[in-house]
């Protein structure tokens, strides 16, 4: 037994304490469970958003990405910031509408705005198939980090089992409140660890930031900028833009915004949240430090660079703290994903198929689904494999397809019909699936275009088709309904 294990176990116990504290004196109906009775203030919402957005994928994946791709890895910091700026304008409107109509899920929003339960089913399906891979990645990350931080004493499989059980229990006990309270510990711990590592590694191994970047520039000239082709400036621009639009379309992030106590919360957070993105800069430093220290890592090994560099540098108790930060970084988003998936299935899919189900039954069903979806995700994550990474990339493109229909629904005179919204999202989904499965790029589809356009993020094609179909079908169905009304009126007169 070493110090690392005690710290890891201690952090799990601490998270349970927080979850039980969060539940105190609250009756957990569906509204309390999913949106915390809409009572979260600015600081709580800040911590929850940071807690959800800053996942284990960011922790392990971004440092690996810096190691692999150099300057291109900065795109996460950039799109996150732009997403918060967009949030200033759209979240207050979404929140107000959700409060007036007592909505609890993202799909509720589409159902209510477009007066179509079937649009709710479609958006719920989009959400579920995007969120389950996301949850799987969290569990896998948890397995890796606990295995590494415990120096191999706790196997990844055991860690994933424990992780799933912890997430399940804690979603069941206190819903979003548990996630928010755990976020408080998580955000501070992660901030501390990341800043510490990001400052310590460059100084310890190179003597300073300038020295480190000079050394990398000498060894790999231009690596810290964007490349000429592939992850080029035009790739960067389109990827940042699409990701910024898609960010709040994740159902667990979208739904969590309902829990704010008033709309000012979002405007305040839009100025504070960008600064939290600077945490990613320190992760960039960690990844950069590894480039020359542990060279020649390939593929999945690069996700481990943060831990490899830490275990070769520090005493076990610091590694234990890093492990604990990683566990929290998986638990908070994991619990939100699990809760949101269950709610979507119960409320926006099951209820539409069986309309006579009561609210109380739906609320119970959502909770019964938690362990089931947890078990399915655990089973899939134990299967492992690289396909999961492809699925999460696809998930991001999927949820982005909800953006056009959402944006139009926020306008005062929305001329988009429910058929238009449905068809647009469906076409977007089909395009994303086709593109992902066939590994298509813009360059492959249009080989005659200049290189800078070939490097466009391929998601832009799906989004463009989505908008075109959305507009065309809306115009057609609108005209049809106007005509049929005219006919009806004539019939009456």
């Amino acid at each position, binding site marked *: 037994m070493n110090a690392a294990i005690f710290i890891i176990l201690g952090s799990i116990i601490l998270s349970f304490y927080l979850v039980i504290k969060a539940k105190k004196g609250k009756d957990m109906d569906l509204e309390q469970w999913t949106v915390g009775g809409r009572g979260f203030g600015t600081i709580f919402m800040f911590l929850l958003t940071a807690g959800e957005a800053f996942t284990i994928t960011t922790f392990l994946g971004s440092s690996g990405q810096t190691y692999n791709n150099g300057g291109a890895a*900065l795109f996460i910091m950039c799109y996150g910031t732009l997403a918060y700026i967009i949030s200033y304008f759209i979240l207050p409107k979404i929140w107000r509408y959700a409060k007036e109509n007592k909505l609890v899920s993202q799909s509720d929003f589409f159902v209510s705005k477009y007066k179509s339960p079937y649009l709710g089913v479609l958006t719920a399906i989009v959400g579920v198939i995007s969120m389950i891979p996301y949850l799987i990645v969290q569990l896998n990350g948890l397995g890796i980090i606990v295995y590494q931080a415990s120096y191999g004493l706790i196997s990844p499989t055991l860690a994933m089992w424990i992780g799933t059980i912890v997430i399940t229990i804690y979603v069941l006990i206190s819903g979003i409140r548990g996630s928010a309270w755990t976020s408080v510990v998580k955000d501070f711990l992660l901030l501390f660890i990341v800043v510490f590592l990001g400052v310590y590694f460059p100084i310890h191994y190179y003597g*300073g930031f300038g020295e480190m970047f000079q050394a990398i520039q000498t060894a790999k000239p231009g690596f810290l900028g964007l490349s000429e082709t592939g992850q080029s400036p035009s790739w960067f621009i389109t990827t940042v833009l699409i990701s910024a639009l898609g960010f709040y379309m994740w159902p667990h992030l979208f739904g969590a915004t309902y829990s704010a106590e008033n709309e000012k919360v979002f*405007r*305040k957070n839009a100025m504070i949240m960008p600064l939290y993105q600077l945490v990613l800069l320190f992760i960039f430093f960690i990844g950069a430090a590894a480039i020359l220290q542990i060279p020649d890592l390939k593929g999945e090994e690069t996700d481990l660079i943060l831990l490899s560099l830490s275990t070769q540098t520090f005493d076990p108790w610091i590694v234990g703290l890093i492990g604990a930060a990683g566990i929290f970084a998986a638990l908070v988003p994991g619990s939100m994903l699990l809760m949101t998936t269950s709610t979507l299935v119960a409320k926006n899919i099951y209820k539409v198929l069986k309309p006579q189900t009561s609210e109380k039954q739906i609320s119970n069903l959502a909770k019964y689904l938690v362990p089931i979806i947890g078990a399915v995700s655990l089973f899939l994550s134990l299967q492992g494999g690289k396909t999961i990474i492809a699925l999460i990339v696809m998930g991001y493109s999927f949820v982005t397809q909800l953006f056009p229909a959402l944006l139009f629904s926020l306008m005062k005179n929305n001329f988009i019909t429910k058929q238009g919204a449905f068809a647009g999202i469906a076409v977007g989904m089909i395009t994303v699936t086709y593109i992902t499965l066939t590994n298509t790029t813009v360059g492959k589809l249009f080989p005659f275009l200049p290189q800078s356009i070939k490097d466009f993020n391929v998601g832009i094609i799906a989004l463009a088709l989505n908008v075109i179909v959305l507009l065309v079908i809306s115009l057609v169905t609108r005209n049809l309904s106007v005509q049929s009304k005219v006919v009806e009126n004539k019939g009456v007169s």
Partner: protein
Amino acid sequence: MKWVKLLAIVPFIGFLGGALWANKVTPFVLGLPFFTFWCSLWVVLSSVIMLIVYMFDPDNKEGDIK
């Protein structure tokens, strides 16, 4: 003062345009490669710009709608 919201476009130009005109490793600024410095600078500027938007946005003058 509704137009103050238009300021929010500036960070988009900063980040997206930066990929075109700030995509270089040298010169180093504050020890950071130029592109890294540029992106970090715009994260901070975005926060400042949103502070200005917040201060002058008439929507925030009204009391909280509870």
